[in-house]
């Protein structure tokens, strides 16, 4: 980047500062713990912490930290939860309380003058076999007396594989790019809608380094195409049914050049039980088609270019049902919590790899938020 562009960028940011109007930025902090447990013997407990501090009328900096403590049979034997791993020869770590810790800090800065909001930052995560690093920037502009908000976002990641056993990957990088366009519109005093379009592009080693196809005459690691581009379009809305009830809904369509297409519907009803306590019920349905290179189990041949055994490359549906909670204290502090049950439909690939009919999971969040 040339000096000219740096000067122009700094000058633009200065102008934004001078023209600042009514910023909604606040010094705030939150901490909590999330969990994820499924019947494929994956158990994740994640303490979270976020801290945001205003540094001027319109600028705020922040840090978010997430630590995933992961216990998974799949990590003890190299990915296959149900079988001794003959292909990877990975060793067991039965005696450890957890098999991996993933540290994932995000540093970010936000500018907000009431009509313009700009946020940007960097993300870094490290775990035993994977390093993730990314940058992101989002801009939102309020229009039409703050009835309309248009946004654009961009992120680029530069991730790297480092398999836990001695395997030389054809390409150890996985880079992903995402561009989002969003529009929010207030429709009535009780109804607002949002539309989001995302374009995603991935390149590099896009399969797992651990999954493999094992048939009578074939023992091959998974091999996917090394590029993938996808499009997603989502429409969301929230509608106030009456003074104490609101309905939140969304629909997303996704399609990519691996021929995977999916539909996702989410509906949530929220109810104020008092001025301090809110809860509700949510339901999510997801369905996807299979990729154009996955084959029926046992049908691969040595002439095939691609090998896939991960159920995510096959067709399946999933259901999620959950309960959210929000409790507000008198001093404005907020406790939020949620519990959700997730289940996929029966799937041959799940059966073959994990030795179970389908994936079922429970995930929870618990967070305490306050301004300081």
């Amino acid at each position, binding site marked *: 980047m040339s000096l000219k562009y740096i000067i122009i960028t700094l000058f633009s940011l200065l102008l934004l500062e001078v023209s600042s109007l009514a910023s909604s930025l606040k010094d705030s902090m939150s901490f909590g713990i*999330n969990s994820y447990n499924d019947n494929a013997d994956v158990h994740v407990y*994640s303490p*979270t912490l976020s801290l945001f501090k205003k540094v001027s009328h319109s600028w705020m900096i922040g840090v978010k930290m997430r630590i*995933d403590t992961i216990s998974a049979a799949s990590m003890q034997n190299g990915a296959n939860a149900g079988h001794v791993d003959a292909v990877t020869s990975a060793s067991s770590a039965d005696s450890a309380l957890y098999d991996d810790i993933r540290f*994932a800090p995000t540093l970010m800065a936000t500018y907000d003058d009431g009509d313009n909001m700009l946020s940007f930052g960097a*993300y870094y*995560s490290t*775990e*035993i076999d994977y390093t993730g690093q*990314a940058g992101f920037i*989002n801009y939102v*502009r309020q*229009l*039409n*007396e703050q*009835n*309309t908000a248009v946004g654009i*976002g961009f*992120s680029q*990641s530069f991730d790297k594989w480092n398999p836990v056993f001695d395997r030389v990957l054809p390409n150890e990088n996985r880079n992903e790019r995402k561009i*989002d*366009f969003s529009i929010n519109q*207030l*429709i*009535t*005093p009780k109804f*607002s809608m*949002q539309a*989001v379009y*995302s*374009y*995603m592009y991935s390149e590099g080693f896009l399969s797992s380094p651990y999954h493999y196809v094992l048939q009578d005459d074939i023992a091959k690691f998974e091999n996917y195409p090394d590029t993938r581009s*996808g499009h*997603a*379009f*989502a429409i*969301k*809305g*929230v509608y106030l049914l009456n003074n104490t009830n*609101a309905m939140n809904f969304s629909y*997303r369509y996704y399609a990519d050049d691996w021929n*995977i297409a*999916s539909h*996702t519907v989410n509906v949530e009803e*929220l109810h104020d039980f008092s001025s301090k306590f809110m809860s509700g019920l949510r339901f999510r349905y*997801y369905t*996807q088609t299979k990729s154009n290179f996955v084959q029926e189990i046992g049908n691969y041949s040595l002439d095939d270019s691609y090998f896939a055994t991960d159920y*995510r*490359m096959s067709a399946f549906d*999933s259901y999620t049902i959950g309960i*959210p909670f*929000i409790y507000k204290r008198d001093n404005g502090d907020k406790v*939020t919590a*949620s519990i*959700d049950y*997730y289940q*996929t439909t029966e799937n041959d690939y799940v059966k073959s790899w994990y030795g179970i009919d389908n994936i079922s*999971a429970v*995930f929870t*969040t618990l967070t305490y938020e306050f301004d300081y």
Partner: protein
Amino acid sequence: MIRIGLVLFTLFFMGCSEHLVRVMPYEKEYFSQDKMSLSPLGERAEQEGHIFLIREASAGGESAFQGGCGCR
């Protein structure tokens, strides 16, 4: 597809028209309530975004950033 998105985005960005002023400032009180947020629980949205990214083959449609991990 991106070009169409950019054109639509530019049209909206340039101000559209006053027809989009549907709600006056004094009518916005409901939107300050937690239940009227498109994402009423931020931490849940972040966590489930990550879980669905790991457990399913689709992505996008969220105007938020999700960092990568090896579980995908």
